[in-house]
């Protein structure tokens, strides 16, 4: 079909993205008018941009919920699912900014990187923009653009601590891995286009549903190859095995606000995109099993690899790999209602229980993982900060190994050895970390248990035998994961330390406490979160344009 000329109606549902774009431009323009390069102005501009984007998102809610338009000739889909994922992404970036204000702000000043501040926020906003687009498309071309748009700023963000070796190394790994997976993805996409003559996955799914026999023989092989390439690209964002190798290095090397951002936002966008791919390709008989298998491998790998880590950021990085695995397992319940393939010309919203699980899980994961990372940042700040005189004394007093073992470069406050005796040294932060870790383990009274229950319920509702395999895998992984989460808890609560108490009262502690307490409060509000997730778990299915006319 001829590409329709975009009209104003096409732009209205994109108001949040446009706001982000505008905010980025403003952030970039600030140094021109503010020669002193006041970093606070940039930060405030970015925050205002995020708030404005949230407001714009709220404004477009009725459109997404009731009209669910496809924009630009099917390149972008604004349905309830996309709306909800974008809400999560933008909201979470707000939390990252709160972390920046309370933690990284000082470090920017201390390292006299003030001149870089506008770039930092521009990159953050543009990565967010790319992630928002990732959540709203089934078009292969748009997918590629969105993924790259999210990735390129992320590479720079990962290496933003230019003076530090680990940061530079992390960024380098990230770029190389990203470039390779992008190339593979483009190759896979080209195969899919060659097979079906369309770039829209929904049309591909439609074609497969109309003619299941088309997946046999060499056709099927090529299709599987194409899908493999596509998944390599998306899996890179999700950090699913085997595309996860960048994850621990990048998470360790990047500054903690960037790590926090990548650990949730980047994964969320990737998983949302994968969900879209899954629903569009639901007619492919093995796609659900594929997601389940990858998910099981991913969570086992992540949990086993997390075990020996001594750096809290690396440990949480592997834990986030494992959680992506859990979500993938749940997402394998692709659809649960609505027409899979509608009659010609009909545009249908498909209810997906996998998407419901994903939204439910992601929303709560924001608080589990976000809380853990913010607390880790707070602990590091208090350990190394100007008021935390305990650092050097603490090392000599409690670490039997020579202090030289502790890297003087980065992460000195992120080494688990310094967590000894935190119960006494910093009771509030130890408690917030405890709550977040229990939540990540999946212990009752925290949202982590809610996500486990929901995950099990979604799996069992599919009624398939494979679901029990998923249930068993998650059950075993919960016990494996308890080992290493409890290693941190043991270090904080059971290992004594002679080091003096830390001064805990700081803005970042407040953020950590708020996030941690939501881990408990939202558990009580299970029903509301679930209602929210269920009412947004609707994805656009087959497009309005007649089959065969796309591309």
């Amino acid at each position: 079909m001829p590409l329709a000329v975009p009209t104003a109606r096409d732009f209205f549902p994109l108001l949040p993205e446009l706001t982000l774009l505008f905010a980025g431009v403003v952030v970039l323009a600030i140094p021109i008018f503010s020669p002193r390069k006041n970093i606070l102005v940039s930060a405030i501009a970015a925050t205002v941009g995020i708030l404005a984007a949230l407001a714009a998102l709220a404004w477009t809610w009725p459109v997404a919920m009731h009209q669910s338009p496809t924009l630009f000739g099917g390149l972008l889909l604004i349905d309830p699912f996309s709306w909800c994922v974008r809400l999560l992404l933008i909201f979470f970036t707000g939390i990252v900014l709160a972390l920046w204000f309370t933690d990284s702000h000082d470090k920017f000043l201390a390292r006299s990187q003030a001149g870089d501040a506008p770039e930092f926020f521009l990159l953050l906003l543009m990565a967010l923009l790319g992630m928002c687009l990732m959540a709203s498309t089934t078009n292969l071309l748009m997918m590629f653009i969105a993924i790259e748009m999210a990735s390129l700023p992320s590479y720079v963000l990962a290496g933003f601590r230019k003076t530090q070796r680990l940061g530079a190394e992390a960024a380098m790994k990230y770029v190389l891995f990203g470039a390779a997976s992008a190339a593979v993805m483009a190759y896979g996409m080209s195969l899919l286009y060659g097979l079906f003559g369309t770039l829209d996955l929904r049309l591909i799914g439609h074609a497969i549903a109309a003619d299941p026999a088309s997946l046999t023989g060499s056709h099927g092989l090529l299709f599987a190859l194409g899908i493999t390439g596509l998944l390599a690209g998306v899996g890179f964002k999700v950090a699913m095995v085997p595309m996860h190798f960048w994850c621990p290095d990048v998470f360790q090397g990047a500054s903690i606000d960037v790590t926090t951002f990548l650990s949730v936002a980047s994964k969320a966008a990737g998983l949302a995109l994968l969900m879209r791919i899954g629903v569009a390709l639901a007619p492919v008989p093995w796609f659900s099993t594929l997601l389940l298998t990858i998910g099981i491998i991913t969570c086992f790998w992540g949990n086993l690899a997390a075990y020996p880590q001594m750096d809290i950021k690396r440990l949480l990085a592997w834990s986030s790999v494992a959680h992506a695995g859990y979500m993938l397992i749940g997402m394998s319940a692709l659809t649960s209602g609505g027409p899979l393939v509608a009659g010609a010309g009909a545009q249908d919203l498909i209810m997906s229980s996998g998407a419901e699980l994903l939204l439910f899980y992601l929303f709560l994961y924001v608080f589990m993982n976000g809380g853990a990372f913010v607390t880790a940042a707070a602990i590091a700040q208090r350990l190394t900060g100007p008021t935390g005189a305990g650092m050097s004394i603490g090392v000599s007093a409690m670490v039997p190994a020579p202090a030289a073992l502790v890297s003087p470069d980065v992460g000195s406050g992120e080494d688990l050895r310094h967590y000894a005796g935190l119960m006494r040294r910093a009771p509030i932060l130890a408690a917030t970390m405890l709550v977040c870790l229990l939540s990540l383990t999946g212990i009752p009274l925290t949202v982590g248990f809610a996500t486990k229950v929901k995950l099990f319920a979604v799996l069992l509702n599919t009624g398939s035998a494979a679901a029990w395999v998923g249930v068993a895998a998650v059950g075993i992984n919960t016990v494996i994961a308890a080992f290493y989460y409890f290693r941190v808890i043991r270090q904080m609560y059971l290992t004594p330390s002679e080091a003096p108490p830390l001064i805990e009262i700081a803005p970042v502690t407040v953020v950590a406490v708020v996030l941690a307490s939501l881990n408990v409060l939202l558990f009580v509000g299970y029903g509301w979160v679930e209602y929210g997730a269920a009412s947004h778990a609707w994805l656009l299915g087959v497009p309005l344009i007649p089959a065969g006319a796309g591309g």
Partner: protein
Amino acid sequence: MLSHATILTFLLLLPIIGGLIILALPPGQAKRARPVALVFCVATLLLNILAASWFDWSRAAYTLAPSSIQLSFRIPWIHSLGAEYFVGVDGLSMPLLLLTTAITLIACWASYGIAKNVKGYFALLLFLLAGLIGVFISLDLLLFYIFFEVSLFPMYFLIGIWGGPRKEYAAIKFFLYTLLGSIGILIAILGIYYHTRGMNPDGGAVFDLVRLATDPAIRSLFSHTGHAASFAAVAFWLLFAGFAVKIPVVPLHTWLPDAHVEAPTPISMILAAILLKLGAYGLLRVSYPLFPAQAADNWFYVGLIGVVSILYGALVALAQRDFKRMVAYSSVSHMGYVVLGLAVMNPTATAGAIFQMIAHGITSAMMFFIVGILYDRAHHRDIPKLGGLWSQMPAYTGWAAVGFFAAMGLPGLCGFVGELLVLLGVFSAADGHGFLARQSLGRMGVGGPLLWFGSLAAMAIVLTAAYLLWTFQRVFMGSPRPEHQNFPRLSGSEKWILVTLGLAAIILGIFPALLLTPLRPTIDGLVRLVTG
């Protein structure tokens, strides 16, 4: 405010509020933590007694029918799953609830020796109390599971922070054993969810324990001919394994000696007196009512596990040099009687099992306290290095003798009644009043195994007497040792705690009817439900 509907919720909230108040005490006021905790423990006990006075024991038939549940309160919680906040008590949970609040008060009283991080200790103690109360009052399966699991955490920290030299190992071992067990329980719960989906008017699954046990549709679903029969066979063992870790039975018991040896004295008391009961309570509340047919099928294996636990626990206790380890293994042995009593599930044996739960709660708390008093003075628990305490600490020895004889099951003390009833129940089980009435008597016959079970369990009483008397002899008799010369006499708290527990053991031993009469309707109802 305080009404029949809300009293249990207040009972649950009171310790939580107390714990939060203790945490909020300013650092300089840490000394106040113990008095505050004591006040809240007393208040909880009083509230519990008030609830008990509102409780109609004659109505306490354990039919799990709505009428037998008293002081109940329910509000929907998770619509899509069908889970509710549903609390209530019946004749089974009320005695255990009283045991919990009473023993926790005594343990709190006994916590005078805690010097490290006092605020944290007493706050955790109160949170533990809240978790335990939650287990005994929840009648929603998911809620039950949540409290069951949550009560793990305070225990982990109480052992891990305030414990002995190998506390970290003991704490994580305790934690992982129980976590593994509860994963099994969770999977069984999920299966129940899966099979009862849509049976709720809301469209959710059924988590209401009363309905799960009494609804004819669900009962037939899990019966031999129901289409969830194969699931039910697996689920019974998953639940059994999960609860058996807590009881604990051989071979899932190895966490227990470590946890007990490392835990501080008051925590050992709670662990033995209450936490071990959670497992048995879980069997009585969940496994047997939900899967009666499977329980009847497996009576032999359950009974065998019980007998093995009785014998193995007693034999290993005989070999211990460490006083506390000896008491810990004796717990394994004593809880084996509970399992054996449940296995045959006739009125006599069930009454014995429930009585044994309460009696063991009293005697084990007393025994651990006796060990604790000695350890405070001698700073070791090596039995061969002790001796001759009688002449140096006569009052202590006197009360210790009460504890030893009560644990041993001397007639006139509480340990006797439970074991006797279990044995009577086992020997009379073939007469058609329990599970075994419905068992095919053909192939193997039930008489033989029953005779063996009963005889071996009865023989174990001799072993119990052997290890307890031998220990008593080595610790208290013999010539006085010079190094014990300076042992301080019993302090006021120590004496009164011993007196309280000792009197409880004597009273229940002389008047078992105090407990058995009110339990009668409950036991009849339970047996009818499970075997009917």
